[in-house]
């Protein structure tokens, strides 16, 4: 099956091989609750904006396939816990094509446009996460 590299980010922990799953964006607490109760969670790659554990972290014990964040670092709470659940995670993902959309605004925060851009590119798509490199995680569309 053809693969297309769609984004790279900080790899939370080295994992041999790759994992595949369908991306689901959780943007609101209600999305988190819904996914926690969905049996498909175990074939889902979570996409979320921040790296704080109290948001998407509640889903991790349900064993999603992987995690992608738009912000945050491997040393964040979410990064630490995902590593210990052995869930491959790519944080602060950067798409290969930004379509001229600024990632950060003048205030230093991630722009809503960039978040929407990433969500549009990944939400609902089947992806493969490659976390073999110790530092860089890669996201492929399949």
């Amino acid at each position: 099956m053809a693969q297309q590299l769609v984004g790279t980010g900080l790899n939370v922990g080295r994992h041999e091989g790759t994992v595949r799953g369908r991306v689901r964006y959780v943007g609101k607490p209600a999305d988190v609750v819904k996914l926690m109760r969905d049996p498909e969670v175990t074939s889902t790659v979570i996409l979320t904006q921040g790296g704080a554990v109290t948001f998407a972290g509640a889903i991790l014990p349900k064993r999603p396939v992987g995690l992608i964040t738009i912000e945050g670092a491997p040393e964040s709470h979410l990064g630490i816990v995902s590593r210990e659940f052995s869930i491959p995670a790519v944080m602060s993902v950067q798409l290969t094509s930004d379509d001229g959309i600024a990632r950060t605004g003048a205030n230093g925060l991630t722009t809503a446009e960039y978040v929407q851009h990433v969500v549009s590119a990944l939400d609902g798509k089947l992806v493969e996460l490659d976390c073999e490199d110790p530092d860089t995680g890669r996201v492929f569309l399949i």
Partner: protein
Amino acid sequence: MSNETSRSQQQYLDRYQPADEGIRFMPGAAFSYGQLPPLPDGILGDRILRENLKTELLKGPLSLDDVRRPRFTIDELNDLTAYWSWDLWDQLSLRASEGSSGLVPRQEYEALSFANAFYRWPEFMIDMTERLGIDGVVELGRSGREPASKINMLHAWCLGAVTQLGRALYIIMDRHKPDEFLPELNAAMKFWQALAYGYRGDGYLWSSQDRYRTCALDKAWSKRLEDSMEPLKGDTRAEFTSLMASAELLSFYLHLDNRLGMYDLGPFVLGNGNPMIVRSTFTREDIYSWSMFARDLPYAMTFAFEIDAAQMSLEEARVISIGTLMTRPRNYVNAIVKGSVWVRDEWDSELRQVSLEEATTKYLGPVGDATGDVFEWMTRTPSRHLIESGAFTYYVGMIMPFMRKAGLYDHYCEHENLWEFDERAAQVYYQLGRNDFARIVVPTRLFTSSETSFAPIPPDARLWRSKYAYV
């Protein structure tokens, strides 16, 4: 593999050689502070900083006589402030931005707690010092040298760090000047110094001063933990790390997304050269109303584990002052080869070992349920309430363990309105959201501006100067 061969493959042990400068976790990054040379992260940053400080205070280990001195000089306070500013950058920049939480307004509640703690803590600290004596405060710190105690490096560190952050916050807001509130600053720094001295037992105040080691357990405890660990392979390792991760997750939720719910000790270098880490998670804390969701869980769970350093080619293992293990390479989980689980049912009961099977059977489900319940409680809680609750997890949660152990917590609740905001601090709430003050202005002014808000005290300042009038 012989022990000798094994040790030769453990690069991380080189970090403990006196001339070793460590490796950079943030290559190319440096922190600027006043006239000091650029300060990188890690062992080298600590060394450059301490070599360039004005006084002898932080040049080497402290003695008890140093701690007994009633106050710091202005130059010493300035050296401490310089070290605190680098230390905060060194530890917190590693995490980078966590970005938006989507649930817990962390930056807002942190700023509110800094504001409140700066006004309220000094009085409690002075009172405790008067009641216990400075030697008693040292002993209070020393009493935490066992696993699963909130009298630990993290909580002691917080008392110093948050005082400094509160001072910086008011300087950012232009409410205080660098030469004001000096008796309060001095009292807080002395209280933190005595606790950290007693707890660490090595004369250092920060983990970074000792190459990122915090091995603050009495020998009998470290031996007991070492002897308790059993080999973990395949499924048993997955069970162990899942239980540990679940307990960590609950501890984060119970403490509203901050680190007060867990801390690491170590690295304890074992006979075979591998490091042992002792991780404690607090899975119930009865002073918080939302902890009722964890009412059937033990107060704390401790996980001792051995990492195979050669297997993961461990280059450096830091247990930073906030009690978090950071390694290079990052992923140590796959290299955990031994472990044991311990439980403390109440904050003041004995720690007892439980088998992994018993711990998993008895606690894994309830820990997950409690996590889900706290999460749902958060989703139903208005932002303002979360900010106030979060501010209390910092302002009360950081100092409470010392009050509780000293038998003074109930007294301060009943007679000193511990669970209250100072009126001046409460006003800060309304500024937090304006123009992204808490989310952008504060972090920017703390770490990236050319004129840092960790401002030195002017040399002509008077140590008695508080702030008596807001005019």
